[in-house]
């Protein structure tokens, strides 16, 4: 299994644990805006941090390889995808519970979204040439 895949899969497992912990924290918090924020953040950690990240890691490993020097595509691009995805999810998780206090926290969501969009575009570019017969 290539190093990049191992990093994706291990971080995915960490996000699974974090998502479940956030969900548990939401269950133990009195109902209110903070609880709702925690639930939304936990859902993102699960859908993006766990599921999407696991898909990315396994796809980089399993999709048909290219011929030549970089059979799994650019390692640098793969690392950027890893970084953007995890920074995006972490920022989202950090911003959601405190956003109810107002201020400029709403722009943290935009930054988190842009980071995740960057990861999505990067991943599409990374595997584009490997979806073939």
């Amino acid at each position, binding site marked *: 299994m290539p190093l990049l895949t191992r990093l994706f899969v291990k971080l995915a497992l960490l996000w699974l644990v974090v998502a479940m912990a956030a969900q548990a924290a939401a269950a133990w918090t009195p109902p209110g805006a903070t609880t709702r924020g925690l639930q939304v953040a936990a859902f993102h950690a699960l*859908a993006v941090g766990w*599921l*999407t990240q696991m*898909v990315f890691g396994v796809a980089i490993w399993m999709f*048909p390889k290219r011929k030549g020097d970089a059979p799994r595509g650019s390692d640098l691009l793969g690392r950027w995808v890893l970084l953007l995805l995890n920074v995006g999810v972490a920022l989202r998780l950090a911003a959601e519970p405190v*956003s109810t206090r107002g201020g400029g926290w*709403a*722009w943290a*969501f*935009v930054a*988190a*979204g*842009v980071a*995740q*969009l960057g*990861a*999505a*575009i990067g*991943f*599409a570019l990374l*595997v*584009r040439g490997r*979806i*073939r*017969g």
Partner: protein
Amino acid sequence: MPFGARLAIRLALAWLVAGATAGVAVSLVRAEALPPWTAGPLYRGHVASMLFGWFTQLVLGVAFWMLPKFARHDPRWPRGDERPFVAGVVVMNVALLCTMGAAAVDASQTSRVAFAAVAVSAALCASRLWPRIKAFGV
């Protein structure tokens, strides 16, 4: 990788980018950079893109590629007749596009028809995967 799987996986990647873009737009509503009335359609578009366009379509595509092939098969179709699967993928994507359009103009009847079409497409794809969940050598 067969044509049906390539089609489904490529379209799944396109929906991933579209869904993430819709997610950024939803966060722009929260930052008050977009008008509040756009929140509902954008959120519905974000969820449908990610859930059906990305996850579901990717899983279907990879399953069509990876599930066991038939031991005794028509040489043209080692995975069974591919055409219903391809039709299912096409219907799913057209229906999802209609769902997006319907959400934008709040046309709930169109949205209901589009979701029914998504269900039909899921049945078409599942019908091609079902016989391949089998013991080896069959």
